[in-house]
């Protein structure tokens, strides 16, 4: 995929995540300069803030199901901040968005430290995710608990 195409795909994932959050009743904002997070999620009434990094990949069909590959900066993964970062891995199929994997930075870091999830290449953690009807995993680690886990942003009625 060309660099230009990557920009389009990445932006589409970011917009899809923002659309889902808005639909759920949460306000979103984009940083003017991209320095580590793609979306800020804000609870209007309380000012609570989440920092979200969206990673987007196009699904590659496999014999059963599909796979998708993501790159996460190791430095970002290892950096503690308050508020902490939430990663959303968006997988796009031909017919629409297949899956959103929503996982805290600290949880992904723990998976990396304890279970060696992914592989390291040039300062990045490379995650190859595969999914079919019965599983969603990376490096034999089960990611199903994080599939579509929007629970930290429950649907709000205004």
């Amino acid at each position, binding site marked *: 995929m060309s660099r230009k195409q990557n920009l389009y795909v990445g932006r589409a994932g970011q917009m899809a995540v923002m659309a889902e959050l808005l639909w759920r009743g949460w306000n979103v904002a984009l940083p003017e300069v991209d320095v580590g997070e793609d979306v800020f999620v804000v609870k209007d009434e309380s000012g609570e803030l989440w920092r979200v990094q969206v990673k987007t990949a196009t699904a590659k069909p496999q014999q059963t199901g599909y796979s998708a590959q993501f790159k996460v900066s*190791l*430095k970002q993964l*290892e*950096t*503690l*901040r*308050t508020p*902490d970062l939430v990663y959303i891995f968006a997988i796009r199929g031909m017919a629409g968005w297949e899956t959103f994997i929503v996982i805290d930075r*600290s949880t992904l*870091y*723990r998976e990396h*430290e*304890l279970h060696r999830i992914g592989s390291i290449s040039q300062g990045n953690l490379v995650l190859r995710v595969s999914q079919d009807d019965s599983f969603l995993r990376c490096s034999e680690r089960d990611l199903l608990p994080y599939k579509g886990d929007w629970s930290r942003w429950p649907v709000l009625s205004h």
Partner: protein
Amino acid sequence: MSPIVIEVGKQMNGATFRLSPKTEVLLESRIPDWSPASSIFVSFDTQWDFDRLHGPMWTQIAMLLTSLSEEQIQNLGGFIFMSPSDKEVVFESRAA
């Protein structure tokens, strides 16, 4: 005995502290029904650095994160505060 490892993340207005994943696993295995705070943020109103944290504060942060007494922490080997990205140790208190 390997000490408790607390990871730190410094930012302009303070720092975030969290047990390392390996320390979490160690304490989960040793302490039944252990449910610690997941992280602690110490906030300062002005720009700061780690040298503004004094001795007792490091111990108090370790106690809050582990839910253990100072004596229990020392019995486990003490603690170190470390930056996870560059492995720099910013403070340590090892058991004698």
